[in-house]
C-alpha cells in the first residue's frame, strides 16, 4: 500500500468516488447498446501489474507481478515471470503462446505498461529448424518496438532466451549467409533511418553468431536488401526495422545493461557480451573529463529562422544562473523575471520552450518575479536594471541595447536530473544571508557597514567587476579620479565613449545628464575602484595585485566580493507553446463514412445529397463498414444496435480467402487474417434524418456535420451519427478513438494561489482544499495552496472548450442515451472539481485527474508527478532541424544524441514509458546530427531516454522510408520548421524532411508505418517516426515532449472504443487503453523524483558549485522527492525557495506565433539580436543561412526537379507525371507539388542577409551558387520580384 497521510487518503478517496460516479453513468450509457461494446473500454489500472495485465491481456499476471516485485528488482521480475509462463499457470496451451506471452509481459513490465511496444512491437514468435535438426526460437520484432527503448528491447531477447531454455529448445545456429544478411540489412536500415548507434560489422557478426535467440522481424521499410536475398530461413527480402533496432540500439548499444542482468540472473551463454562492452568502452575512452565548464554551442547549431538567440554560450550579458525552485519551476522548467520575458521581444511566453546550453538541452519558460530582471541601455544613455513588469513595458521602445538579460532560476534538481556538474551561482541574497548577511540592507551605507563587519558585499551593490580586465579597472579609476566630481548625492563624471563603454560592462546604474555621466549609487563603486570620497586614489592602490579583477577590487575596497555574474547560460527560443483542441485533418465530427461523395469537407449532408446519376433518388453512397449481426434476430447490419429489435450486435469475421465465417482474427483453415467487412449501400440521407429526429433536432439545425472518408479500423466500427450531430452542434471534433481532446504544453507547478487560477475559495474548500500550505485555514484567495498531485490547471481557452464539451456530453446523455445531464455547467468555473483524463503523446495509459482551475497562459499546469506519470520520455524539443535531421534528422534537423549510460541495475529505475535509470557516469554518446545529414552521422531518431527527440517508419513520395522509430519521434514540416510528432502521429500527406545526397529536403509521407529529434531534457523514447529516424533518410525529430492532452473522464468512458483504432501498427498509440487512477511516485517517471522541495538551499550548495562538484555529492543534503519515497511525505509538505506573484505573468503569447511571414520573423529576430549584448548577430545570420535557408533552397530546388504530382480532383499522388498527362484514376488535372515560388521563397532574404551582415565568404558563395542554379533552372527573367509574403 502506498504510504499516505490521512489527508491524502481522503483526497484519493474523493477521486475514487468521483471516478465511480462517472463509471456508473458510463456503464448505463454503454449498456444501451449504441456503442461498439456494451461495457466501458478503459480499464482502471492502479499499478504496473494491472497495466501490464490489461495491455498484454493475460489474466492473473498482475497478482504475480505484485508478489514478485516484493522480492526482486523489476528487471528480475521481467525474467522470472517467464517461469510462470513455462509452468503454464496462466493457461497457455502451446509453446508459441508461452513464449509470446512471456516476452510481451516482460516487455510490459520493463516499460511500465505504458507504451505500445509490448503489444505492437512484437509481431509474433515462431520456431525454426537448425541445420542439425534442433529447433530454435524466432522473435519477430515490428516497428513500434522503438517505443520500448534500447534496454527493454535488448532485455526482451534475454527473456526469450530464458523461456527458450526452460522449454528445452535449442539455440539459434545461424548460417553464414544469414549473418551476412544481418550485416547488409543493418547497414541499409541505418542508411534509411540513421540509428542511434550503428554497430561495426564485427559487432554485428558477434551478436548474431552468439545470440541464442533468432532476432527476426516484420518488414517495415520499403527497400529490399540487394545482396543476401531469398534466403530459406529469412522470410522477406524487405528491410526489417524492428529487428535492426533490437540488434543495434538494443543488444549492441545496451550491452552493459544486459550484461548486468545476465550476471544477476546467472544466465549462461551470454559471455560474448563482454567483448562488445570492451570494444565499445575503448572507443569512448577519449572523452574529455572537463574541469569546470566550457561554452557549449550545441543548442545553437541548428538555428531555424525566426527563433531568436537570447544569449550566446557563456557570453557576458547572458542569462545568469540562480539556484532555486519556485512554485512553478523544476522538472525541466526554468524561471525568468517577467520583465526579461517582455524585454526580449515577448518571444518567450509562458510555456515556450527554450533551448539551453545547460544543464539540460531545453527548459520550459515560466515567470518568477523574485529574481533579477534585465539591465538595459536606454536611448538617453541611461543604464538601469528593470525589476518591474510595468516598467519593462513602459520603457520598451526606448531600449537601445540589452546589456544583461537577467537571471535564470534553475533548481538543484535539474542539475541532479541531468547529472551536470554544479556551476557557480550569480551572487544572490539567499546565499549572502547564509554567509553572514544579517538582513536586507536598507541602503548603500548599510550594505557597506555589513560588508565591513565580515559578510561579503551584498549582491544588490555588487557590480560586474569580474567582467572587466584589471587594466580596465585601473583605467576606470583613473578616469573617475581625473574627470569626476561629487555633487548633489551623485558622482558625476565627464562622459566619453571609453568611460561609457566600461560602465556598460560593469553595469553600475547610471544616467547621462548633459555631458556628464551620473552615478547615484557611487559609494561602493568608488570603494571598489580604490578611490576616496574626494576621488583620490587611496593607498590600497600601492600594493594592489595585478589580478584577477575580483581580487583586485576586493583588495582596493577591503570588502569580500563574490562574482555577480556567476555562470552565464546560453539560450535560444525553441518551440512556442501550444494550446488547442486536437483535430485530425480534415477534422471530423463523427467516425461515420461518407466516401468521396462527402467532398473535401467530408460533409455528411453532401453525402446525403449525393446522386449517382441525375433523376435518381440519391442520398445513398457505397461504403465499406464492419459486418455485425444481431444475436437476437440474426439481422445483419453495420450498426452497433440492431434496428429491428434493439439488441447490441456483434462483429462478424470472415476469411477473405476461404470465404467463410470464422471466429477470431485468424482463419483456422488457411492461417490468413480475417476481415470484418460489409459492403453497404449506406443511406446517408435517411440515416441523417433519423438521427436528427431521434435527437429532436431540425435537420438544418447544424449546417455541417463532418464524417470520415472511410473506416480504417479492423472492425470498421462506425459511430452513431447522432454523436456527430451533437458534436457539430457544440463545435467539437472527434479524434480517431472516439474521444474529443485538447492539447496543451505541460508545465509543473506545486503550489497555487486561488486568485491566479480563477477558482473561488468556497469551491476549493468544498473539494478538499481546506488549508493553505502553511496549515492555516483557507479563507483568502491570496493564500498559497499545495497542489494535490492529480489536480490540474488548464488554460482559459481550454476552459472554454471544456465547457462546450461538457454541454455536448450533457446533451448526449440526455438526448441520445436518455440519461440525466451530468455536468450542468454554464461557465468554465462550474467545472472545477470535474474529472478528466490526461494523456501524453504516444502513450497508451491515461491518468485520472481533476480540474482545479484555469490559467491565463496557454499552458497546462499540473503537479510534477502528474506530468511524470504520463511521460513517456520522449524527446522533447523540436528538432529543429535540420535534418532534417538532422537525422535527423533531421535535419534536418535532426538532432541528437542521447546520453546513454543508465544504470539498469539500480532498482526502480524504470520510468513510465521508457526505461530509464540514472546514468552511471557522465558519458556522451555519439551524437547525431539532427539536421539531417544523416548518413554521415548517426542520428537517432529513435527514442531515447534522455533527450527528447524522435519516430516510426514512413514511406514517402520520394521512395524513402523513414523512420523515425515508431517510437521515435518524427519531424514534420510545419510552416518553416519541423514539428516533432511521434512517428505514430505522422499522417499521410505530412511533409517530412529527408536527406538526399547530403542535403535535406522535404518529402511527403505516403504511407505511415511508423520518425525524430530529441532534445531537451525530456527523455525521449520513442522513436516514432523517425525513421528518420532519421533519420534515416528521414530525419527524425525530437519529440515535443511535454505536450499532452486532456479529455473528460466521462467522454473517455462512454465514447472511447478500441475498435475505432486503426488497424495499422501503432494505431493504439496515443489512446487511453488503460487508466491510471492513483499516482505512486515510485511508478512515475524518475525525473519527478529529482524535484527538490526545500525552502532554502544550504550554503554547501553554493560552495560546492564554486568547485564544480557533481550534483550527486549533495544528494542527501538537499531534500528532494526521492528521499521521501515510501513515506507520506512523498505527496505533501513540499516547499519552494522562490515565490512568484502570478504563475501566468509575462507575455501570454509568443511573438513568434503572432508574426506572420518568415520575412517578418527573421527581421524581428535579427533586430532583437542586434540589441542584445550577449548575441553575435552576424553569427546568428550565418547560422540561420546555413542551417535553415540554404538547406531549404537546396532541398526544394532538388525536389522541384524530382517532384511528385497530385491530382487536383481526387488528391491521388503520383511519383511522377503520368504519361496520360492527367489523373489515370479520375481524369482530373494533375498539379505540381513543389512550385517555383516555394523554391525561391528564401532566396531574396538570403541575399539580403549576405549583404547586411558579416557573413563568411563561403556561405556567401553558397548563396551565389544557388542563385545561379535557380536561374539556370527557371530561366533568367525574374520578371517580378514577388513579395516574400506571397509565399508564406
Amino acid at each position, binding site marked *: 500500500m502506498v504510504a499516505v497521510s490521512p489527508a491524502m487518503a481522503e483526497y484519493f478517496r474523493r477521486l475514487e468516488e468521483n471516478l465511480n460516479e462517472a463509471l456508473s453513468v458510463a456503464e448505463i450509457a454503454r449498456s444501451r447498446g449504441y456503442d461498439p461494446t456494451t461495457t466501458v473500454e478503459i480499464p482502471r489500472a492502479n499499478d504496473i501489474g494491472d497495466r501490464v495485465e490489461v495491455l498484454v491481456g493475460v489474466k492473473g499476471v498482475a497478482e504475480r507481478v505484485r508478489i514478485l516485485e516484493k522480492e526482486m528488482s523489476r528487471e528480475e521480475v521481467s525474467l522470472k515471470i517467464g517461469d510462470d509462463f513455462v509452468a503454464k499457470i496462466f493457461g497457455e496451451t502451446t509453446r508459441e503462446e508461452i513464449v509470446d506471452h512471456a516476452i510481451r509481459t516482460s516487455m510490459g513490465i520493463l516499460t511500465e505498461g505504458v507504451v505500445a511496444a509490448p503489444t505492437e512491437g512484437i509481431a509474433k514468435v515462431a520456431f525454426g529448424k537448425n541445420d542439425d535438426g534442433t529447433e530454435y526460437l524466432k522473435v519477430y520484432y515490428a516497428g513500434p518496438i522503438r517505443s520500448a527503448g534500447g534496454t527493454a528491447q535488448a532485455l526482451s531477447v534475454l527473456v526469450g532466451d530464458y523461456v527458450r531454455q526452460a522449454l528445452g529448445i535449442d539455440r539459434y545456429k545461424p548460417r553464414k549467409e544469414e549473418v551476412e544478411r544481418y550485416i547488409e540489412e543493418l547497414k541499409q536500415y541505418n542508411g534509411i533511418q540513421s540509428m542511434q548507434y550503428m554497430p561495426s560489422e564485427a559487432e554485428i557478426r558477434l551478436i548474431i553468431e552468439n545470440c541464442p535467440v533468432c532476432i527476426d522481424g516484420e518488414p517495415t521499410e520499403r527497400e529490399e536488401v540487394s545482396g543476401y536475398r531469398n534466403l530459406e530461413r529469412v522470410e522477406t527480402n524487405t528491410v526489417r526495422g524492428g529487428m535492426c533496432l533490437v540488434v543495434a540500439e538494443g543488444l549492441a548499444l545496451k550491452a552493459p545493461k544486459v550484461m548486468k542482468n545476465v550476471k544477476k540472473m546467472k544466465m549462461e551463454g551470454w559471455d560474448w557480451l563482454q567483448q562488445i562492452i570492451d570494444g565499445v568502452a575503448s572507443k569512448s575512452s577519449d572523452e574529455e573529463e572537463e574541469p569546470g565548464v566550457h561554452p557549449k554551442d550545441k543548442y545553437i547549431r541548428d538555428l531555424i529562422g525566426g527563433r531568436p538567440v537570447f544569449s550566446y554560450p557563456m557570453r557576458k550579458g547572458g542569462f545568469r544562473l540562480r539556484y532555486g525552485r519556485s512554485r512553478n519551476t523544476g522538472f525541466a522548467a526554468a524561471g525568468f523575471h517577467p520583465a526579461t520575458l517582455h524585454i526580449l521581444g515577448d518571444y518567450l511566453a509562458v510555456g515556450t520552450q527554450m533551448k539551453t546550453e545547460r544543464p539540460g538541452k531545453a527548459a520550459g519558460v515560466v515567470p518568477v518575479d523574485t529574481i533579477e530582471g534585465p539591465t538595459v541601455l536606454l536611448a538617453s544613455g541611461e543604464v538601469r536594471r528593470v525589476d518591474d513588469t510595468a516598467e519593462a513595458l513602459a520603457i520598451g521602445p526606448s531600449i537601445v541595447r540589452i546589456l544583461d538579460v537577467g537571471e535564470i532560476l534553475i533548481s538543484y534538481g535539474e542539475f541532479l536530473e541531468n547529472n551536470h556538474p554544479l556551476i557557480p551561482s550569480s551572487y544572490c541574497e539567499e546565499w549572502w544571508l547564509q554567509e553572514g548577511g544579517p538582513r536586507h540592507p536598507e541602503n548603500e551605507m548599510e550594505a557597506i557597514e555589513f560588508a565591513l563587519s565580515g559578510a561579503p558585499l551584498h549582491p544588490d551593490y555588487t557590480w560586474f567587476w569580474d567582467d572587466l580586465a584589471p587594466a580596465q579597472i585601473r583605467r576606470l579609476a583613473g578616469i573617475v579620479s581625473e574627470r569626476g566630481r561629487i555633487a548633489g548625492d551623485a558622482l558625476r563624471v565627464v562622459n566619453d565613449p571609453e568611460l561609457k563603454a566600461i560602465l556598460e560592462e560593469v553595469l553600475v546604474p547610471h544616467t547621462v545628464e548633459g555631458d556628464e555621466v551620473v552615478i547615484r549609487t557611487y559609494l561602493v563603486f568608488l570603494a571598489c575602484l580604490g578611490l576616496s570620497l574626494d576621488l583620490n586614489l587611496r593607498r590600497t592602490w600601492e600594493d594592489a595585485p595585478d589580478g584577477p579583477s575580483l581580487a583586485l577590487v576586493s583588495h582596493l575596497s577591503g570588502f569580500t566580493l563574490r562574482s555577480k555574474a556567476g555562470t552565464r547560460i546560453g539560450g535560444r527560443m525553441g518551440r512556442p507553446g501550444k494550446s488547442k483542441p486536437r483535430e485530425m485533418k480534415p477534422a471530423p465530427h463523427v467516425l461515420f463514412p461518407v466516401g468521396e461523395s462527402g467532398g473535401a469537407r467530408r460533409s455528411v449532408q453532401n453525402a446525403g445529397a449525393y446522386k449517382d446519376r441525375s433523376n435518381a433518388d440519391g442520398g445513398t453512397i457505397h461504403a465499406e463498414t464492419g459486418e455485425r449481426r444481431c444475436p437476437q434476430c440474426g439481422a445483419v447490419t453495420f450498426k452497433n444496435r440492431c434496428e429491428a429489435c434493439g439488441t447490441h450486435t456483434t462483429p462478424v469475421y470472415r476469411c477473405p480467402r476461404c470465404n467463410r465465417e470464422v471466429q477470431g482474427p485468424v482463419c483456422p483453415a488457411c492461417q490468413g487474417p480475417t476481415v470484418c467487412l460489409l459492403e453497404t449501400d449506406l443511406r446517408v440521407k435517411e440515416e441523417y434524418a433519423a438521427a436528427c429526429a431521434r435527437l429532436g433536432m431540425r435537420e438544418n439545425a447544424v449546417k455541417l456535420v463532418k464524417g470520415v472518408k472511410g473506416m480504417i479500423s479492423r472492425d470498421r466500427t462506425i459511430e452513431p451519427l447522432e454523436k456527430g450531430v451533437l458534436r457539430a452542434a457544440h463545435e467539437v471534433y472527434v479524434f480517431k478513438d472516439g474521444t474529443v481532446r485538447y492539447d496543451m504544453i505541460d508545465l509543473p507547478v506545486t503550489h497555487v494561489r486561488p486568485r491566479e487560477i480563477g477558482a473561488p475559495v468556497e469551491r476549493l474548500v468544498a473539494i478538499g482544499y481546506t488549508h493553505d500550505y502553511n496549515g492555516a485555514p483557507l479563507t483568502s484567495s491570496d493564500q498559497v495552496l499545495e497542489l494535490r498531485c492529480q489536480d490540474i490547471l488548464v488554460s482559459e481557452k481550454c476552459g472554454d472548450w471544456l465547457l462546450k464539451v461538457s454541454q455536448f456530453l450533457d446533451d448526449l446523455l440526455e438526448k441520445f442515451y436518455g440519461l440525466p445531464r451530468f455536468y450542468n455547467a454554464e461557465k468554465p468555473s462550474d467545472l472545477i472539481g470535474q474529472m478528466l483524463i490526461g494523456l501524453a503523446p504516444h502513450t497508451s495509459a491515461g491518468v485520472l485527474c481533476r480540474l482545479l482551475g484555469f490559467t491565463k497562459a496557454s499552458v497546462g499546469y499540473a503537479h510534477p508527478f502528474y506530468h511524470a506519470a504520463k511521460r513517456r520520455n520522449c524527446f522533447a524539443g523540436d528538432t529543429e532541424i535540420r535534418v532534417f535531421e538532422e537525422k535527423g534528422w533531421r535535419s534536418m534537423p535532426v538532432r541528437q544524441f542521447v546520453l546513454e549510460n543508465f544504470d539498469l541495475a539500480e532498482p526502480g529505475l524504470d520510468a513510465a514509458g521508457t526505461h530509464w535509470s540514472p546514468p552511471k557516469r557522465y558519458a556522451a554518446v555519439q551524437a547525431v546530427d539532427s539536421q539531417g545529414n544523416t548518413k554521415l552521422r548517426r542520428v537517432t531518431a529513435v527514442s531515447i531516454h534522455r533527450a527528447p527527440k524522435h519516430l516510426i517508419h514512413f514511406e514517402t513520395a520520394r521512395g524513402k522510408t523513414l523512420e523515425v522509430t515508431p517510437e521515435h519521434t518524427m519531424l514534420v514540416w510545419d510552416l518553416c520548421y519541423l514539428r516533432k510528432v511521434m512517428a505514430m502521429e505522422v499522417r499521410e500527406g505530412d511533409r517530412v524532411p529527408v536527406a538526399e545526397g547530403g542535403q535535406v529536403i522535404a518529402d511527403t509521407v505516403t504511407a505511415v508505418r511508423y520518425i525524430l529529434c530529441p532534445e531537451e531534457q525530456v527523455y525521449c523514447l520513442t522513436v516514432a517516426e523517425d525513421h528518420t529516424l532519421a533519420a534515416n533518410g528521414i530525419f527524425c525529430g525530437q519529440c515535443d515532449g511535454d505536450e499532452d492532452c486532456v479529455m473528460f473522464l466521462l467522454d473517455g468512458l462512454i465514447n472511447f472504443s478500441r475498435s475505432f483504432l486503426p488497424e495499422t501498427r501503432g494505431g493504439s498509440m496515443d489512446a487511453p487503453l488503460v487508466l491510471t487512477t492513483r499516482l505512486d511516485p515510485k511508478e512515475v517517471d524518475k525525473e519527478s523524483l529529482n524535484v527538490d522541495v526545500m525552502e532554502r538551499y544550504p550554503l554547501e550548495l553554493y560552495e560546492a558549485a564554486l568547485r564544480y562538484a557533481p550534483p550527486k555529492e549533495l544528494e542527501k543534503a538537499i531534500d528532494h522527492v526521492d528521499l521521501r519515497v515510501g513515506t507520506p511525505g512523498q505527496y505533501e509538505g513540499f516547499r519552494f525557495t522562490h515565490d512568484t506573484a502570478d504563475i501566468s505573468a509575462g507575455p501570454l503569447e509568443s511573438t513568434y506565433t503572432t508574426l506572420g511571414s518568415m520575412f517578418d520573423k527573421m527581421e524581428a529576430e535579427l533586430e532583437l539580436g542586434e540589441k542584445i549584448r550577449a548575441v553575435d548577430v552576424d553569427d546568428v545570420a550565418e547560422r540561420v543561412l546555413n542551417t535553415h535557408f540554404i538547406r531549404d533552397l537546396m532541398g526544394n530546388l532538388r525536389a522541384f526537379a524530382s517532384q511528385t*504530382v497530385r491530382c487536383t480532383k481526387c488528391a491521388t499522388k503520383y511519383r511522377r507525371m*503520368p*504519361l*496520360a498527362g492527367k489523373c489515370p484514376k479520375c481524369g482530373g488535372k494533375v498539379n505540381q507539388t513543389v512550385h517555383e515560388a516555394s523554391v525561391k521563397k528564401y532566396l531574396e532574404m538570403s541575399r539580403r542577409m549576405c549583404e547586411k551582415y558579416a557573413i563568411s565568404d*563561403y556561405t556567401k558563395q553558397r548563396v551565389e551558387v544557388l542563385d545561379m542554379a535557380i*536561374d539556370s533552372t527557371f530561366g533568367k527573367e525574374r520578371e517580378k520580384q514577388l513579395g516574400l509574403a506571397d509565399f508564406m
Partner: protein
Amino acid sequence: MLCEDEIVSRFLATSLFVSPEVVAYIKEQDDPGLIDRIIAGTPEGTVVVSPDCIPALKKVRDGTRFLADPVCEVLAGMENSAESIRDFEEYITYFRNRFTRLSTFMRGRIQPVPIEALARTGRYQEEEVSFIGMVSNVRSTANGNKMVEVEDPTGTMRVLFNKSREGFSEAEKILPDEVIGVRGKLSQDGTIFFANTLVRPDIPLSNAPYRSERPGRAVLISDIHVGSDTFLEDEWHRFADWISGQEDIGYLVIAGDLVDGIGIYPGQEKELVIKNIYQQYAALGEMLSALPERLTIVISPGNHDVVRGAEPQPAIPPAFRIGYPANCVWVENPALVSLQGVRVLIYHGRSFDDMIGTIPGASYNRPAEIMEEMLKRRHLAPIFGMRTPIAPGKKDPLIIDPVPEVLFTGHVHISGIKRYRGVLMINAGTWQSQTAFQKQMNTVPTPAQAVVLDLQSLETEIVDFLTPGS
C-alpha cells in the same frame, strides 16, 4: 512460345552450342522456323552459334562516317542547349518523348497494342499479346513475384512476373520509369497481365562499333575534385608529366566533378583546402594550362560542379573559365562527342546512386554492370524522383541514342571497363583518395587512374599514377 531449354536443345541436337544472346533473340522473334534457318546458315566447323550467324542480322554500321573538321565534334549536349524549365507541364512532354522514342527501339521485336485496347475489348483475353509501357510502380508480392504497374498514354495495367518463369532475374531488375515491352496473357477479368517475356529497348545485336580510320588516342578521366583535402596533387602532376610525353594522345575527356564545390554536403567546409569556388576552378585552370596544347580537352560537369543539379546540367558558366587554355571544349552533362568519328557518350553518373540502391545485387564496386543496365534500357537515368533531379524538356536528352561506341561515366570513384554488344563502357575512377564519407560507407576508391582509349582499335589501357614511378 519457345522456351530457352527447347531452343538450346534444338541446337545441341546438331552438336552446336548457342550463345545466350542468340537464345534471347530467337525468343523475342518467337519463330520456331528461325532456328532451322540459323542452323542451316551456320558455317562448317562452328562450335558456338553467335549473333553473327543469324541470317537476318547483319552488322549495321558500315564504317562510313562524315567527319567534321576539326576531328572533335560535339554531337549533343553542346553548350547552351540545356534549357530552363518554363512550365511544369513540360514533364508531360518530357515523359512522352521518353516513352515514344524508347518504344521505337522495341517495335521491330514486338507488336504492341495500346493498353487501353487491352482493357477495353475482350478480344485479347486468353490470347498472347504484347504491349509497351513505362513503369510507374514496382513491388514484390507476398509470394515473391513481381507486380509492376505500367502505363502508356492510353491507360495503365498491372503486370505480374511470376518468379518461377524463366527470365525472372531480369524482371527483378525492373526500375521505375523505364520503358519495357511485355508479352503474355491478360487475366480473365482483364485487370492483370501475366507476363511471359520481358523486352527492353536494348542495344541491337547487330550493333558494330565504328573504329577511327586513322590512329589516335584519347585519355578519359573524371572526378578530379580540386579543392578537396583528399585531392591527389602529386599523382596529378605525375599524370601531367606522363601525358606531356604521349605525343599520340590528342584528347582528354573529363566526365564531371571537376572541383569539390561548396556546400555539396554538410560539413564540407572542413574538408576543403580551397574554400572559394572561383579559386577551385582557377586551380584546375592552372592544372589544365600546364598540359600540352595539342590536347583537345572536353569538359563536362558533375554533381559537385557549380551548375544546377538537375540534368541535363549546363556547361560550366564562363565566369568560372578564367585562366583555362583555349583548347577546352565545354559541354553539358550528358554530352555526345565524336572523336575522329568514335562517338563517346559522356555522362557523369548521378543515376548510379539510384540504380545501385534499386537493382538487386548491384554494387558501387562494379560500376560497369550498372552501365550495362543503362544500355539495356537505352537510358542514362531511368529512375525519376530519387536522387537524380531531371529538368524536363521537349526531348529526353538522357536517352542513349544513337548508340555510341563508348559510354563514359564517373561519379562512383571506382574504375571499371566492360563491353556490351559492341559498346565499350568505361568508368574512370577519381583523383581523390578515400574520403571520410567513403570510409564510413566502406567504399574503397580507385584513385589516380587514367583510361587510355585507342580510337582505332577501341582497346583500352588503364594507367595508374598512384605510386611514384608506375
